[in-house]
């Protein structure tokens, strides 16, 4: 494993499987009376969140605490950032406080990569702009594996359809990279306006017709329509988007019997996913949250649990 987790592309197939296998063992912890391990005692993890987030920040916080690390939460609101401090100065402050790992979420693509050049600890990207969100991809892969494959396996031959706002989605990019590394066949189903220009260079297929893809999908991953990042008109109306690319109960019947429905959250019920789909037995949405803690524990353990990486030795 590399020292930082910036992109899902940083992970080889072996690395990804090691993280999933580690998460598999850590998942048992949830059933034990004491849900805590002493492994990262004395290590400090800083959650550096420049963008609003509930589940990702809480998930990283729970993961670090279950491994006994000290957690410092930093949110841009009410901090020096509001007074105009730059990312670099914030990074140097954290460095001076002795952070062993920095978990960063930022609205600018590439923020995690820049940060990695400034701090000595490990940097974990928890979402940078419209670029990547690798731990979300890991927890999605973990969820798919648990539902459809079983422990120890990769995702060879699993057909995943990612639906919706790919253009603004860091989740989609990380998932395409990671799931294809693990052997899954990924198809993006979206209106042409919501696909990035360079999508033909991605290791996946593209379709404009969701209904044609559903019968051959083992996994359907619905993306949130990110109104807050939309600065132009990408589709005529929410209603029309929902008609063509929303997953409602009628559409769900086209899926094979074993297929699962995923959503990274937060959901716009009634837009990209109907309430009865989100609450159905096929839906893994609540499972994904639980698996998020486990997967992030695995990442933090593998980055911080061993020796310091050789290039940071003084």
């Amino acid at each position, binding site marked *: *494993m590399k020292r930082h987790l910036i992109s899902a592309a940083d992970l080889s197939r072996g690395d990804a499987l090691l993280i999933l296998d580690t998460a598999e*063992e850590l998942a048992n912890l949830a059933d*034990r009376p004491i849900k805590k391990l002493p*492994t990262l005692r004395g290590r400090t993890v800083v959650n550096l969140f420049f963008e609003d987030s509930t589940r990702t920040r809480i998930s990283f916080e729970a993961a670090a605490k279950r491994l006994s690390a000290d957690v410092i939460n930093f949110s841009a609101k009410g901090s020096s950032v509001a007074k105009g401090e730059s990312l670099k100065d914030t990074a140097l402050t954290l460095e001076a406080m002795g952070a062993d790992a920095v978990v960063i979420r930022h609205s600018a693509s590439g923020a995690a990569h820049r940060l990695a050049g400034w701090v000595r600890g490990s940097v974990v990207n928890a979402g940078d702009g419209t670029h990547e969100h690798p731990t979300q991809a890991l927890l999605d892969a973990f969820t798919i594996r648990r539902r459809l494959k079983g422990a120890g396996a990769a995702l060879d031959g699993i057909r995943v359809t990612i639906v919706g706002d790919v253009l603004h989605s860091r989740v989609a990019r990380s998932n395409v990279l990671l799931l294809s590394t693990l052997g899954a066949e990924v198809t993006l189903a979206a209106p042409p306006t919501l696909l990035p220009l360079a999508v033909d260079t991605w290791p996946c297929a593209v379709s404009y017709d969701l209904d044609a893809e559903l019968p051959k999908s083992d996994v359907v991953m619905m993306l949130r329509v990110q109104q807050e990042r939309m600065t132009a008109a990408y589709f005529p109306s929410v209603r029309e988007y929902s008609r063509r690319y929303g997953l409602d109960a009628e559409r769900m019947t086209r899926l094979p019997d074993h297929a699962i429905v995923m959503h990274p959250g937060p959901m716009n019920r009634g837009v990209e996913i109907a309430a009865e789909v989100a609450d159905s037995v096929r839906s893994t949405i609540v499972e994904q949250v639980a698996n998020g803690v486990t997967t992030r524990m695995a990442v933090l353990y593998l980055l911080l649990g061993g020796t310091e990486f050789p290039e940071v030795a003084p």
Partner: protein
Amino acid sequence: MGATRHPIAGRDDLAVLDAEEIRRALTRIAHEILERTHGGDEVVLLGIPTRGVPLARRLAARIGEFEGLEVPCGSLDVTMHRDDLRLRPARALGRTDLPAAGVDGKIVVLVDDVLYSGRTVRAALDALTDLGRPQAVQLAVLVDRGHRELPIRADYVGKNLPTSQREVVHVLLAEVDAQDAVMISGAPS
């Protein structure tokens, strides 16, 4: 676990125990466990991965043969509790698999292949504390090679093997290594 990671022993290795001797040692330990625990009713065997796990299963099977008693058997991974984690890159985790009845109030017998510094057993005791409160904890090892660094001793020993710290002891088990043997390599000084 100590220095038992290498599955293939080199040519200059000396076989200390062969398959038959390992079988007899385990048979004796099984009898001793029954004797010391007054029939073994409360016993839970927990193997420490990797090679403690098949050893625990063999002991359970042996006890089953002698007394017709089904002894709960599981595994206890100690990786996250080790004190030497920072000395090596993060390693893959083994499996922790507790019998359904748990460990509360039971006599837990930890099973490992080699007892050396005692640090693995210390980690196992910590790991066990987080899982429940046994009535008592005992330790069974196939080989005790000495050089303890902590005040820990085994209750059941297959073979006491005086070694030099330069030597390496390999335990090979059919379930993992396709053969049963205990080998020692590296000349004593």
